[in-house]
């Protein structure tokens, strides 16, 4: 039996297992038969193992260069770095569907294993919904996009190769995390839906929903940030974020999830916003399906069209289906979900969370609007327009700024309402610091006012968090504890809260990088030859050499730069390369980056004119380093707030 047959058969088996577990769950619910329910559950468990082996078949085919499989032929070749054959599986449409199916089946397994025991009532519903979601992807593969399709005759001896833009270390982390994040939004979605259907949404399980949504949200967030980092190291992608449609469809579910993980706190603490939370998770789920659609055959033009296919209709259909499903569930169970939403005071933590939700959704709306406006324009006025970065910067910029501002105010407010004296003591120093920051930057630089406002908001949020910490640990320090110990003690005593603050700090760092590169970047371009020197800022750059390496599938030109200090000593060597792939008629350019917390020196060999002359674009990007540091801190914060309360006991 060939590997392709095995892989496909396993997919067909998975499909049947999914169907079985859906039907079994439904019959089990109807008859109240726990035997049938259990059997459906076991079938759901099995889907993971069949999907896993099927994925392993595809990976095996890639690693062994089995070009009889069309998908392997399209996305791999002999001259590719062997490391990439392990991950080329998700380089195109069919394989990435298999990867997504694997992620979903794994999440079914994990959810069923780690679900709290008191959630047994909603379990069959949960299994049915998640298996249904998995069934969709497996079905698409079996009927429309079979990754194991083979050549019957004329088996090629070499493949076409992976899209050259994907040959980058980022390939190991960004695509799998982003796809996993988008696919696993189905976990909190199915949890909540099953709880609604069984009428158990009120009491138990909220903690588990929060945990899973935090995990999903952080996977998606890290995936997005890694994408930014990848784009930053490759020129042509214009820095870290260009508001491209496919970037936007990844961002929107994340924004809605961000709103969700904030407002779920209110539901846990105060039992409020139940309707709102359900709407948010439904919206996030539908937006994730929207992303899937745009990515795989949507009607927009994007720089990231790696998984483009002709299956647009199917994904659009599934998106419409999920929207209908959500509306039906919502309308039919509105009475079960409804809760009294009474805010005690406008100046309270609850209100701040709501305002935060408002702005997050506003950004989501603007992003969605910018994405579909060209389509509307095309349909109604038959005119093609582009809605790109300048639009989003101008419209979303101020809203993001307001969101930052709320981040500084919100944590100072208490639940149910804040007394004036409290507010005054909490906000006095942070707002003073913010005002000083603003004045300083506004007077000292000729940058737009937005930059000073952003920096002062960052100062406001940061000082709020620091003062909060200070206040919290003061009583401990007074009792004679060392301040460092008090600091950690405080975090471990209230992990959810302080984990959240650490995540806030990471967002601030990202914002700092954005301000740095957007407002303080210095950029020049110059045609230079080997041996020449350029001075920019405090840097002296000497062009050392240009080497050319020829491979079967690509021509690589590598430029080496020496960075000199004032005494003409070489402090650093940078390399930038420009690789041309004739099969794809595509060039991929890697920038030489010298990174430091203060600023990045960023050199791009944009064009080679002849053997020793090239066009360079050199820029100094201040503070970008902090943006990438934000990533690990983001993960750290999420982990701290996820760490189980009774970990020490168990």
């Amino acid at each position, binding site marked *: 039996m060939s590997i392709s047959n095995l892989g496909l058969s396993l997919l067909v088996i998975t499909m049947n297992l999914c169907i079985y577990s859906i039907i079994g769950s439904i019959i089990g619910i109807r008859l109240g038969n726990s035997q049938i329910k259990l059997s459906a559950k076991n079938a759901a468990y099995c889907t993971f193992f069949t999907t896993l082996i099927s994925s392993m078949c595809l990976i095996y085919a890639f690693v062994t260069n089995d070009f009889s499989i069309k998908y392997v032929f399209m996305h791999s070749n002999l001259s590719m770095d062997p490391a990439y054959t392990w991950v080329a599986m998700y380089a195109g449409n069919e394989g990435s569907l298999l990867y997504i199916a694997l992620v979903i089946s794994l999440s079914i397994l994990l959810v069923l294993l780690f679900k709290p025991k008191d959630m047994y009532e909603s379990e069959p519903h949960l299994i049915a919904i998640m298996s249904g979601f998995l069934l969709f992807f497996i079905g698409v593969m079996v009927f429309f996009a079979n990754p194991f399709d083979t050549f019957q005759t004329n088996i090629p001896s070499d493949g076409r190769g992976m899209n050259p833009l994907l040959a980058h270390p980022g390939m190991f982390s960004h695509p799998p995390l982003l796809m996993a994040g988008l696919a696993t939004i189905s976990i909190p979605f199915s949890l909540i839906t099953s709880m609604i259907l069984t009428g158990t949404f009120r009491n138990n399980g909220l903690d588990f929903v929060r945990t899973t949504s935090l995990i999903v949200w952080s996977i998606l967030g890290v995936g997005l940030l890694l994408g930014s980092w990848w784009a930053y190291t490759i020129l042509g992608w214009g820095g870290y974020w260009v508001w491209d449609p496919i970037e936007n469809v990844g961002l929107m579910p994340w924004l809605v999830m961000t709103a969700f993980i904030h407002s779920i706190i209110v539901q846990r603490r105060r039992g409020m916003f139940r309707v709102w939370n359900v709407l948010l998770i439904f919206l996030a789920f539908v937006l994730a399906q929207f992303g899937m659609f745009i990515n795989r055959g949507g009607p927009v033009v994007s720089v990231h069209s790696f998984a483009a296919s002709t299956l647009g209709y199917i994904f659009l259909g599934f998106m*419409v289906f999920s929207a209908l499903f959500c509306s039906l569930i919502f309308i039919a169970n509105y009475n079960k979900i409804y809760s009294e939403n009474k805010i005690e005071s406008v100046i309270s933590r609850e209100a701040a969370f709501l305002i935060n939700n408002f702005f997050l959704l506003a950004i989501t709306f603007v992003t969605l609007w910018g994405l*579909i406006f060209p*389509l509307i324009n*095309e*349909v109604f006025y038959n005119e093609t327009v582009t809605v790109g970065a300048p639009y989003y910067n101008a419209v979303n910029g101020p809203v993001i700024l307001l969101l930052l501002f709320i981040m500084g105010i919100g944590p100072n407010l208490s639940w149910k309402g804040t007394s004036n004296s409290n507010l005054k003591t909490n906000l006095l120093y942070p707002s003073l610091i913010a005002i000083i920051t603003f004045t300083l930057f506004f007077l000292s630089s000729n940058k737009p006012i937005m930059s000073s406002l952003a920096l002062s908001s960052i100062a406001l949020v940061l000082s709020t968090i620091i003062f909060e910490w200070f206040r919290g640990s003061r009583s401990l320090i007074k009792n004679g504890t060392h301040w460092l110990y008090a600091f950690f003690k405080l975090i471990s005593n209230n992990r959810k809260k302080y984990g959240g603050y650490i995540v806030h700090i990471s967002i601030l760092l990202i914002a700092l990088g954005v301000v740095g590169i957007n407002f303080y970047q210095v950029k020049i371009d110059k045609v230079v030859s080997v041996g020449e020197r350029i001075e920019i800022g405090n840097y002296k750059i000497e062009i050392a050499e240009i080497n050319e390496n020829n491979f079967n599938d690509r021509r690589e030109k590598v430029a080496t730069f020496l960075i000199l200090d004032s005494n003409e000593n070489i402090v650093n060597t940078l390399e930038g390369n420009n690789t041309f792939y004739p099969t794809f008629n595509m060039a991929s350019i890697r920038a030489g980056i010298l990174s430091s917390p203060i600023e990045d020196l960023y050199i791009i060999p944009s064009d080679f004119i002849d053997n020793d002359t090239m066009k360079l674009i050199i820029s100094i990007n201040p503070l970008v380093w902090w943006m990438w540091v934000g990533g690990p801190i983001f993960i750290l914060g999420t982990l701290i707030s996820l760490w189980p309360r009774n970990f020490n006991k168990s």
Partner: protein
Amino acid sequence: MKLFLSIILSFITIGFFIILIISTIDREGSQGRPGLNEVSGTAEVKFEVFNKIYENNIYGNEISYDEYDAIVLDFWASWCPPCIQEAETLAEGYKDWKDKNVKFIGVALWDNENSIKNFIEKYGLQYDVFMDNDGKYAIEYGVKALPEKFFINNKGKIVNKYIGPINEVELKNLIEETIKNNELP
């Protein structure tokens, strides 16, 4: 209030999906994406007046702009596969039309002299070809993909623009349409 809001919201949602469906269907029908070489069909240009190109052709001879009934201006390159695909059609087309007062001009983009000359000899192109290495003329005409052709009538108006490799029938139809346009005011 609640009812009002939900009605508005559901209308917006339905409208959103309808827009998505329409544009997905649209996209399947016409491959309007720039850069794809299968792009075919005609499209309107906003910049619609013929700008004469005063440069010498690849052999150093001046291009004449005497009165023609139609001008076919073709942007191409010797390295572009669809251009190779249509080269013979154009060579034949020129022979058919040169006695009927139709001028063909080829503009080779981002190319070098030797490959152009080889190309001309290989496919027997007899009309004027010149080089546009800094894309000046291509941008002047709003060229989006190679090959891209402009059909210009005797009043200097661009009647049609054609993206992608052309076949004999389409070439004939478009030239005839251009000539027909000459009588129109």
